[in-house]
């Protein structure tokens, strides 16, 4: 049996109230009113598709055998690097093995998430792969005051696929690949360029999705009556989402929520995000169709198994959506997505060159938050250095790798710094102590100064540490965030 063995998700804590866009820019683009309802996932300044992917992947791997993962596929249309394998960063941040691992990026289309799943299934069926992590994430760059900014949301979803303890069995698929272009982003462009929504609806959504889903039902000999939920995205509107359902014969109750009111369309990740949201309510025996929409469509059929009851607890999609902070200040999005030119002062001009040789040497520490543990005295410590930090030990070369990324900690000291260069002042940071030993001075993120106290429980999260504008390089590291 091949199929899903675990799932995980992540949505940025910040949710942009769509009305904030209208309030700020309605004078200029009153038509935004059409889509200004509800809220959407909004990356903080230190989040992007990569950090969302890491959070979702780590959630997915909760309680799973990470060492068994032999391939990592990352799907997105908004990855930070064109030439540096993004799935390699993900694998390092998930602290997976380097040897015996295949990594691949699936990009350039909103259907890349489902294509990555299909490729994983092919690899599991045909080859010697046993466990493949498929993660999809998007945080699309969008122009200010345009519909894309309202429709799209930032988020990530992750699925582990394998052959043992399958919680949703893969039953078949049907794909259509065609050069239908609702919008595109050229290799040198910052934003997408889109065509008329009515055409996208008439020639795209309402033709391609029904064709893919009907083809899947026919190919697998499945009656729609036996299907519990049909999942497909549609960012245009809830109404058009329902119309597509009607065209395949599925009523409102059979359609999975497209999460438009609470999340927005998360691009490559969206079919997976909706799938996970559905799996969280699913019963053994439920048949679920997952279809994507991009340059064509992949439609996949899964059947939920008894094993879903034994899946270790995780944050998942509902847990991610529950951790939210409404953002009414549209100018924060403008600044954080570099849509307005704000004076940052001379202090911000410091050089931010990354020594790639130093990053390589320290990759486990930087990307995987791996420190050391002394085999002589047992002291966990970060960073891992050649000599043990314990004042009554100081043994040389006795340390083995010790991962800290998942360890709970508490705040020992903190400040909110108005002098430090920050696009979210004050810059909050402090000393974090891990309950099981070890401590580190860390940047804090996704928190307000007023809530920070000595003794407050925190957890670590993978975030953008710096962006080097001169060399177009994103530096990532782990930060502390209040346990929520």
């Amino acid at each position: 049996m091949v199929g899903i063995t675990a799932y995980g998700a992540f949505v940025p804590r910040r949710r942009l109230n769509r009305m904030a866009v209208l309030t700020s820019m309605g004078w200029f683009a009153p038509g935004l009113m059409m889509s200004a309802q509800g809220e959407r996932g909004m990356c903080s300044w230190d989040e992007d598709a990569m950090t969302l992917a890491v959070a979702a992947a780590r959630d997915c791997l909760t309680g799973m055998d990470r060492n068994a993962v032999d391939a990592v596929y990352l799907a997105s249309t908004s990855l930070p690097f064109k030439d540096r394998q993004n799935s390699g960063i993900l694998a390092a941040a998930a602290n997976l093995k380097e040897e015996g691992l295949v990594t691949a990026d699936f990009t350039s289309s909103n259907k890349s998430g489902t294509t990555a799943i299909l490729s994983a299934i092919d690899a599991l069926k045909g080859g010697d792969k046993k466990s493949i992590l498929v993660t999809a994430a998007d945080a699309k760059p969008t122009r200010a005051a345009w519909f894309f900014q309202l429709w799209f949301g930032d988020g990530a979803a992750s699925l582990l696929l394998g052959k043992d303890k399958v919680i949703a069995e893969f039953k078949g698929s049907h794909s259509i690949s065609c050069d239908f272009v609702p919008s595109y982003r050229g290799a040198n462009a910052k934003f997408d360029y889109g065509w008329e929504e009515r055409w996208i609806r008439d020639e795209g959504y309402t033709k391609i999705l029904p064709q893919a889903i009907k083809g899947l039902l026919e190919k697998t000999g499945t009656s729609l009556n036996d299907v519990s939920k049909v999942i497909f995205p549609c960012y245009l509107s809830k109404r058009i989402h329902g119309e597509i359902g009607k065209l395949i014969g599925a009523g409102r109750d059979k359609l999975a929520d497209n999460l438009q009111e609470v999340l927005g369309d998360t691009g490559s990740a969206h079919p997976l995000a909706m799938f996970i949201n559905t799996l969280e309510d699913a019963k053994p025996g439920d048949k679920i169709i997952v279809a994507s929409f991009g340059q064509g469509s992949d439609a996949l059929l899964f059947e939920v198994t008894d094993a879903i009851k034994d899946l270790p607890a995780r944050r998942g999609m509902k847990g991610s959506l529950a951790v939210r902070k409404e953002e009414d200040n549209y100018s924060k999005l403008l600044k954080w997505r570099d849509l307005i030119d704000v004076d940052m002062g001379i202090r911000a001009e410091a050089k931010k060159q990354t020594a790639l040789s130093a990053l390589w040497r320290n990759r486990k520490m930087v990307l995987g938050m791996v420190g050391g543990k002394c085999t002589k005295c047992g002291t966990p410590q970060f960073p891992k250095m050649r000599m043990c930090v314990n004042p009554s030990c100081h043994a040389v070369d006795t340390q083995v790798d010790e991962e800290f990324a998942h360890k709970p900690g508490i705040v020992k000291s903190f400040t909110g710094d108005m002098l430090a260069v920050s696009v979210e002042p004050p810059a909050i940071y402090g000393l974090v102590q891990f309950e099981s030993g070890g401590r580190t001075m860390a940047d804090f993120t996704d928190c307000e100064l007023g809530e920070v106290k000595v003794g407050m429980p925190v957890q670590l999260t993978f975030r953008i540490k710096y962006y080097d504008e001169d060399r177009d390089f994103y530096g990532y590291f782990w930060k502390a965030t209040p346990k929520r």
Partner: protein
Amino acid sequence: MATGIRDKVVILGMGCTRFGERWESGAEDLLVEAFQECLQDSGIEKKQIQAAWLGTCFPSISVGQSALPLSISLRLDNIPVTRVENFCASGTEAFRGAVYAVASGAYDICLAAGVEKLKDTGYGGLPEFGSEAGPRNFLVQPNITAPGTFAQLASGYCAKYNISDGDLKRAMAHVSAKSHANGEKNPKAHLRKAVSEDQIMAAPIIAHPLGLFDCCGVSDGSACAIVTTPEIAKSLGKKDLIGVKALQLSLSNGYEFGYNEWEVDHFVTTSIASKKAYEEAGIKDPRKELSMIEVHDCFSITELVTMEDLHISKRGEAIKDIMGGFYDSTGQIPCQIDGGLKCFGHPIGASGLRMLYEMYLQLLGRAGPRQLKDPKLGLTHNLGGFPFMNVCSIGIVGKYGM
């Protein structure tokens, strides 16, 4: 068996520039300004200086690397000159080099100079280094500043001793108000304006809970000293010799930020260096024996906890002593009688020597309107880096032979 430095070396002369925003002067000019005063005070000729040390912390924004800026600015006669850098202890490190060189017998007369030109960055605060902080540091070190790291002592101290934020904020305000009152009387100080505790507490926040007046001045300036043996000083006709009683240094080894013990409530290094310095100087009870102290009040909270690390105030009782006026100019041990880093200013490489300069003036009775009555022993203290990893230097000077 090592016997320490006590009274093996004396100060022959000292000089110090006015600290402040010295837009008109480069570091090279400031070195000459301090040196001219120092040379005149010493009564020797420049060619009698046999070796020199230069302390400076941020060469990239002031004089550049190496000791050449000192050798060239002072037109020294091709003598050995060494640049030392050890964060805020750089000035005291230059002094230590010169003192040890004389004590070793390698040279008769040596010069220690410190300088920093901080006001050529174009912005307030200390310089920002980005990836020039070191390739590994840049990858993992949080987005820290000096006020932000020292500010954390406040949260750690309050948690440890169960003190309210308000009580601590008031005591920190007293620390700064006292230094402002002292600085007003010092013509060479950067900031010469008395400020009330209430004004201090109402100032804008720089790094929570530190406000503007909890932070020291970022200044340009230079200070220097010429040292020799007591015998040579006497042969030059010097009376009232000021002897070096102790010079100690202690550096973090990663324990504070790496091992689960330290509670961000004190300085591990100061606690150790001060004990060693008292032993070297023959001081048994610093609270009774010290006449005055110049400590590293980069931030008010630094001074507050340092009073305990110097073993003058008991642990958890610094606030009581501070609010009781123990460290005021009229108190038992006046602290920052020249205004301190807070008001005299903090050109990093010069600061250790500036503190010694004030001790020297006070011991010789030359401190003008801020002169203390008959001081005998003075302590200086520098703290470079951050509470969680730092360099601490302690100097003790006093009347020779006492």
